[in-house]
């Protein structure tokens, strides 16, 4: 009996137990409690449902959801396009080059997101550096609307989310045996053929999981779209924040948060499946 018990606890799970308990105590518990309380205060379950339905089907929320999805999708695609070659470079280089590129990607993240977003505003404004250079070079005749538009949001969010994708892809690519590409070329494949048939398929799990991570983070994004977006570019997290901070409408915020949480959990479920498959593939 005692032997059995001690063996059970020598398992590695015992080490993550404090973390799990802490998370349950300070995060999961209060979260569930919050939802129950915020929603119960609306009234009977029937009233609750009808209230939730009113909120979810309101034009503001529907539009915000559409905006959120569209922006998140675009951000994910752009981040992927930029990150793939970067991660590829990192995975296939060592020493100074590796350190330098990684440094450039990671170091900005030690400054606050607000400072970084304001820096973008200095760059992208109508009188910002980019517009001034383009005007000076005669590329454009009047300033481009880079800021306070969806373009602005995309630029800002892509920049903020880049490392998540780069590091996810990097981890996957680093696990690709470099001798496979060498083998492909040695067996007569051109660089392009070897990439499309060998490298890309082997990195596709990283692409999928990186995209899911970026998408999940995107749909909950708040500061960058609030600062860099235009008046009508309202994302769901901005609505939630406003409900809580300005209107003290905790029930409405709870319903929108539940919606967001649900979407996130579904995506996380997919992510979990994907990483699971990857483990099975042993790649």
């Amino acid at each position: 009996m005692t032997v059995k018990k001690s063996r059970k606890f020598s398992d590695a799970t015992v080490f993550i137990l404090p973390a799990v308990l802490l998370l349950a105590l300070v995060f999961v518990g209060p979260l569930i409690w919050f939802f129950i309380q915020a929603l119960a205060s609306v009234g009977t379950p029937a009233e609750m449902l009808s209230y939730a339905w009113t909120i979810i089907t309101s034009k503001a929320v529907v539009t915000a959801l559409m905006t959120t999805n569209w922006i998140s999708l675009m951000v994910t695609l752009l981040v992927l396009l930029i990150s793939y070659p970067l991660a590829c470079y990192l995975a296939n280089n060592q020493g100074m080059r590796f350190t330098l590129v990684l440094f450039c990607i990671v170091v900005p993240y030690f400054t606050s997101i607000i400072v970084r977003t304001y820096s973008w505003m200095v760059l992208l404004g109508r009188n910002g550096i980019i517009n001034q250079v383009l005007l000076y070079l005669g590329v454009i005749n009047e300033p481009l609307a880079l800021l306070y538009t969806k373009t602005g949001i995309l630029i800002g969010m892509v920049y903020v989310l880049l490392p998540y994708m780069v590091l996810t892809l990097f981890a996957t690519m680093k696990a690709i045996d470099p001798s496979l590409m060498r083998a492909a070329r040695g067996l007569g494949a051109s660089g392009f053929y070897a990439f499309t048939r060998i490298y890309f398929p082997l990195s596709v799990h990283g692409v999928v999981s990186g995209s899911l991570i970026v998408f999940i983070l995107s749909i909950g994004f708040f500061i960058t779209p609030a600062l860099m977006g235009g008046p009508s570019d309202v994302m769901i997290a901005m609505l939630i924040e406003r409900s809580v901070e300005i209107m003290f409408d905790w029930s409405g915020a709870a319903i929108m948060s539940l919606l967001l949480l649900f979407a996130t959990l579904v995506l996380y479920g997919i992510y979990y499946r994907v990483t699971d498959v990857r483990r099975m593939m042993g790649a």
Partner: protein
Amino acid sequence: MTAPKAVNPGRRKFTTGVAVAAVAPTMFWIKKAAAAEQVIVRTPGGVFDDVKKETIYDPFRKETGIEVVPVAATTAKLMAMMKSGQNELDLIDTGDSTLLELEKSNYLMPINYDEFKYTNPADIDPVVKRKYQVGCFIYAMVLGFNTKAIPVGTEPKSWAEFWDLKKFPGRRTLPDMASGTPSLEFALIADGVPMDKLYPLDIDRAFKSMSRIRSAIPKFWDTGALSSTMLADNEVSMGALWSTRAAVAIDQGAPLGIQWNQNALLAQAYGIPVGAKNLANAKKFIDYSSTPEAQARWLAKYKAIPVNTKAYGATSRDLIDPATKTPWTKSKGFLLDINWWADNRQKVGQYWSKWIIG
């Protein structure tokens, strides 16, 4: 969209769990401070605190031996703290609207002006001398402009002119719903409503009026910093913004001008939360910081209008109307009715959400 009536009771009841989680870091912070006589104050933080520490907190400690411990907290956090009964604050230094929300939920104690020893209560400007809160400084929502784009003297002189896109083309900014109070008052004034007949606001008419200049507004600002940054960078050439924000930018050399006509008076204020552990210290602090001397010392460095009328003499001349020798807020402004806003903010918010997405 019609929200059921049940929403309001929902706002009253509360969620202990969330509140505890939200407040926990604050408690750690407070425990670290010296255990001697102290008063724990919620403040806006940042530069505001730096100036106030030098001009009020430190002299107050020398005078009374009481340490002022500033703590940062958002409005939502304040509400959570109060509603869960986990209050660790002795004093709240925040906008008058927020204090009113707290007051309406019975989370504030009345200000006992009779107990004042340092300040003569009669000297305090009556517009900010309320039962449950007392102003600490007065500022205004004003018409600001970039002086490089619009030379001083040629700026719009009224909200009607601000609304006139033909006479004053160019990009503008106005506060977003997320700032708490979008400029419905200015929209109505521009539409012809007299300044003294604004309330109750005609919400529909105000939004119709705002729609007229919507196309010239690339961005509604949600934080004060954004408003002055956009003006300073000439991202917009004019806008409604807080006078204090404009003043900070001007002091830093930004090309900003202020047109005081038709300004909306706002107040930063103190309120004492129910359950304050250092109640006497909080009262003493309010009393002390309302003296003409303290107000003069502080507001010489932070460009806002004193609540103590005896301190006008030491106030920055930029804030005084030379014609009347009184602050601009008195000569050219109107008092923003925080009571109306407290009652109607959610309604305006829902209107806003629909209006903003076009």
